[in-house]
């Protein structure tokens, strides 16, 4: 029986449509426990490929015969081997093209809405890692917010919709993924913006993102307002687009809030974080649609796969926004922190331009889930 190939895009569709899938993950146990393909109706079996070299007979009875089976490994090679061994026993299986490496890099563009003056807003969902980035389009011009290092995706997407990329923003100096912002700016001639308080050590020139910047995209002034919102980093900035959308960076997520420790200053910044979330954000219209820079768990995805929620709803339901006691809040964001993201210091230095790792090294630095939230 022939072995089939499944792409990251096809797996993403199954995640969004909440379809069933049986994943045979043949990476070793530590890697599987640390990070895997998440889907609400996905089932898993983790057997390292090296335990199957003598044959797959031993696991045949652990595989379902009424579900699609996908074999997954780190880079593809071992999943092809195991899939072929299984197919010799008549089991119908697919392998994930490019393995977890490709899964980590896949971006699904989803339109989140129309803008008042005829523009459009797209969210790029990095489904395997939880990073969210954005493209605003108006009258043939585009702006990108929190781009990942997969720069081709944005450049190709803009070209396909006949938009010229003119502005690129990073809401803060990222610690969990390598920014593609600077590279896209170099390739397209667009202006690159960064909050100056996060940029004290950067080795490149940038446009300072400061309060009340009004930036023209297309023929319309899109009311992008930089809203200084320290907490996650000292320079963390959020944007209000078109008085409809709040791009909250890593400050506020759907069911969690930003962690203040990735630049090493949890105790110093916890007060700023609380001030931003409990006072600055509270003064904003609760009708704003919050568009964060990450999602944490797959259940945060909307029906169409996008990630967004009304600010008012978050004030009602987000655990991190409902800690009335300041002591409890401080305890949550300073003591109850998840493990730090893989290579986060090296990623910060890369984003500062201090080091320039090659592409393989960049992939390795970014492998694993994002962990920039506390809950």
């Amino acid at each position: 029986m022939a072995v089939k190939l499944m792409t990251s895009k096809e797996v993403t569709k199954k995640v969004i449509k909440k379809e069933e899938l049986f994943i045979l993950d043949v990476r070793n146990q530590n890697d599987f426990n640390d990070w895997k393909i998440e889907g609400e109706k996905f089932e898993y079996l983790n057997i390292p490929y090296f335990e199957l070299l003598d044959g797959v007979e031993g696991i045949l009875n652990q595989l379902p015969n009424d579900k699609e089976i996908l074999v997954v490994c780190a880079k593809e090679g071992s999943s092809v081997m195991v899939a072929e061994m299984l197919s010799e026993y008549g089991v119908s299986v697919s392998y994930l093209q490019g393995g977890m490496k490709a899964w980590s890099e896949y971006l699904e563009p989803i339109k989140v809405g129309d803008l008042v003056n005829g523009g459009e807003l797209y969210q790029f969902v990095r489904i395997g890692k939880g990073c969210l980035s954005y493209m605003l389009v108006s009258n043939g011009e585009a702006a990108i917010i929190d781009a990942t290092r997969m720069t081709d995706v944005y450049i190709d997407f803009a070209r396909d919709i006949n938009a010229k990329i003119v502005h690129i923003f990073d809401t803060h100096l990222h610690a969990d993924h390598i920014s593609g912002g600077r590279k896209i700016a170099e390739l397209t001639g667009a202006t690159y913006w960064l909050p100056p308080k996060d940029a004290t050590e950067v080795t490149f020139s940038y446009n300072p993102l400061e309060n009340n910047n009004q930036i023209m995209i297309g023929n319309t002034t899109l009311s992008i307002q930089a809203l200084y919102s320290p907490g996650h980093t000292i320079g963390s900035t959020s944007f209000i687009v078109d008085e409809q959308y709040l791009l909250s960076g890593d400050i506020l997520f759907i069911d969690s809030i930003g962690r203040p420790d990735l630049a090493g200053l949890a105790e110093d910044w916890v007060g700023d974080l609380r001030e931003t979330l409990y006072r600055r954000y509270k003064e904003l219209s609760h009708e704003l649609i919050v568009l964060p820079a990450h999602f944490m768990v797959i259940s945060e995805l909307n029906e169409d796969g996008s990630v967004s929620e009304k600010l008012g709803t978050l004030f009602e339901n987000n655990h991190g926004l409902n800690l009335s006691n300041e002591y409890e809040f401080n305890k949550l964001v300073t003591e109850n922190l998840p493990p730090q993201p893989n290579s986060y210091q090296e990623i910060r230095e890369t984003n500062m331009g201090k080091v320039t790792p090659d592409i393989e090294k960049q992939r390795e630095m970014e492998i694993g889930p994002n962990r920039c939230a506390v809950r």
Partner: protein
Amino acid sequence: MNIAKFLDAKGLACPMPIVRTKKAMTELQVGEILEIHVTDKGAKNDLAAWSKSGGHELLKVEEENDLLKFWIKKG
């Protein structure tokens, strides 16, 4: 260290480093040591996990730029 066998797995991608290591190991006696050179970064975790699951002892790992060296004692 007394090396009974040397395996050059440089340039091979997963799963081949483990496939070759497993084969080389079958040619050794219990207690003998296999030295392996690999360039596939994924082999670092995989060889450690494979040694453990097979009852072998991973004695030493060295990293020189892109080259990974392993010494495994057959168990």
